[in-house]
């Protein structure tokens, strides 16, 4: 069976504009969540988020590009440049034909929808910019990556709410493993921190107004974030033959559906995805040292997730570490699994486990080692990354240290 390794990574998120800065924040347990800076914020009741601050697109993109790149596409391209530049791959001929792009995003060009609805409804304009449609479509980011690097293989976007990135990366993994591609650019992006994007989430009444405190008894909801992370997945022999720097190996993936409730999570659906990923990876449960949790900081997710992990791992659940980095970068919705994969790679490569910050009170319903508040040094050889979306769609990835 073909093996799949990670040979490049890039990101922009509330914690930093690149991977080293983001990993430093994970090590330090730094919080990127703060007051939102956006138009009409005074009309929001939730006024915090994990926002990319002091961001100036005009310093990075020209006028024609900005006319076509929504903020989520910009974030994707910034992360993709970091992942691909310096990877040493020249995408032409057969390699270009055997390389594709699968990216997750839940909302796509939310800011573009927001700005243009404002223009036609609030300001009463009868004309919008000609590129509104190609700018807001969910596949815009994947398309621009394919065009920027001449990637001519299988490319598409995946939208499964909070599991979008994990589904995207899992499909990229399966495409390479199954022979459909040799190299895939994958990950995800979200830029939903606009007035309409936050207002929509307020409606559900699951948002915290002060902090994201996953697994803590006094948690009071999720906090939105924004940004992107993009990875280069590559067939192992291909990577080895060219002497690529291998960051980690993707060894398994599983997806399940709860088929139950549109918002409430299911312990059984989550546990089936975890067990499925272990089986697909041929991992014994006791080999897993760390899980990057979905850990949204809502009452429902965190207790259901802990119960699912306890069920899937049995007694070993008490020996493994599980943390939620959403406490630091917020919930990037469709981009979240991608940014969280950075913490998984750091655990395998550097032996540093990212903490769950904001942890104040133990919750008997979340009685696992959640790595509270401070990063920890620990050797781990295999890790999981959980994502459990609204709509009951679950996606779990399994990784091992570089072979």
């Amino acid at each position: 069976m073909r093996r799949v390794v990670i040979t490049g990574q890039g990101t922009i998120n509330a914690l930093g504009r690149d991977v080293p800065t983001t990993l430093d924040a994970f090590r330090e347990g730094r919080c990127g969540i703060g007051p939102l800076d956006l138009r009409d914020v005074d009309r929001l009741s939730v006024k915090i988020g994990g926002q990319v601050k002091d961001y100036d697109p005009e310093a990075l993109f020209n006028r024609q590009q900005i006319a076509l790149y929504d903020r989520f596409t910009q974030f994707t391209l910034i992360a993709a440049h970091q992942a691909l530049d310096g990877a040493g791959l020249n995408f032409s001929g057969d390699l270009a034909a055997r390389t594709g792009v699968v990216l997750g995003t839940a909302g796509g060009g939310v800011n573009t929808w927001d700005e243009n609805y404002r223009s036609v409804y609030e300001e009463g304009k009868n004309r919008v910019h000609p590129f509104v449609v190609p700018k807001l479509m969910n596949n815009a980011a994947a398309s621009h990556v394919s065009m920027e690097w001449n990637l001519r293989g299988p490319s598409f976007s995946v939208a499964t709410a909070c599991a979008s990135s994990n589904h995207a990366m899992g499909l990229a993994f399966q495409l390479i493993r199954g022979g459909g591609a040799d190299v895939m650019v994958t990950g995800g992006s979200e830029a939903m921190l606009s007035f309409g994007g936050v207002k929509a989430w307020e409606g559900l009444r699951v948002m915290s107004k002060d902090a994201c405190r996953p697994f803590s008894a006094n948690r009071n909801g999720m906090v939105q974030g924004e940004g992107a992370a993009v990875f280069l997945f590559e067939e192992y022999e291909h990577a080895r033959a060219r002497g690529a720097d291998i960051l980690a190996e993707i060894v398994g993936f599983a997806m399940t559906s709860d088929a139950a409730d549109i918002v409430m999570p299911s312990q059984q659906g989550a546990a089936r995805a975890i067990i499925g990923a272990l089986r697909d990876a041929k991992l014994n449960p006791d080999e897993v040292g760390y899980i990057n949790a979905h850990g949204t900081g809502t009452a429902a997710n965190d207790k259901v997730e802990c119960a699912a992990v306890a069920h899937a791992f049995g007694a070993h659940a008490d020996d493994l570490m599980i943390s939620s980095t959403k406490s630091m970068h917020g919930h990037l919705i469709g981009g979240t699994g991608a940014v969280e994969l950075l913490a998984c790679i750091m655990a395998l490569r550097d032996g540093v486990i990212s903490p769950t910050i904001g942890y104040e009170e133990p919750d008997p319903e979340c009685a696992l080692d959640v790595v509270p508040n401070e990063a920890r040094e620990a050797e781990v050889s295999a890790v999981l990354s959980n994502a459990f979306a609204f709509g009951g769609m679950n996606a779990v990835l399994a990784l091992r240290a570089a072979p």
Partner: protein
Amino acid sequence: MGENVQDKIIRIIAEQAVLEPEDVTMTSTLEDLGIDSLGLVESIFAIEEAFDISVPFNANQPDESDFDISSVAAIVKAVEGLVAEQHGT
């Protein structure tokens, strides 16, 4: 006007529970009426719209909210309080 706070709230809750208003009593709990967490959030939204008030309610901490949802009577009392507070009547 005609419809008082109690009648309005019973109408909203009955609609959410797909019941006739006569089937909703003051001692009913939302659970008795078959209203789940999503139905509760939707009912609160309908109450906010009907009374032009803002209801402090976080679905993560239903018990810690100042807005008592333990029965229909409790909701009526809480809404009357919020209307007085937010509209100064």
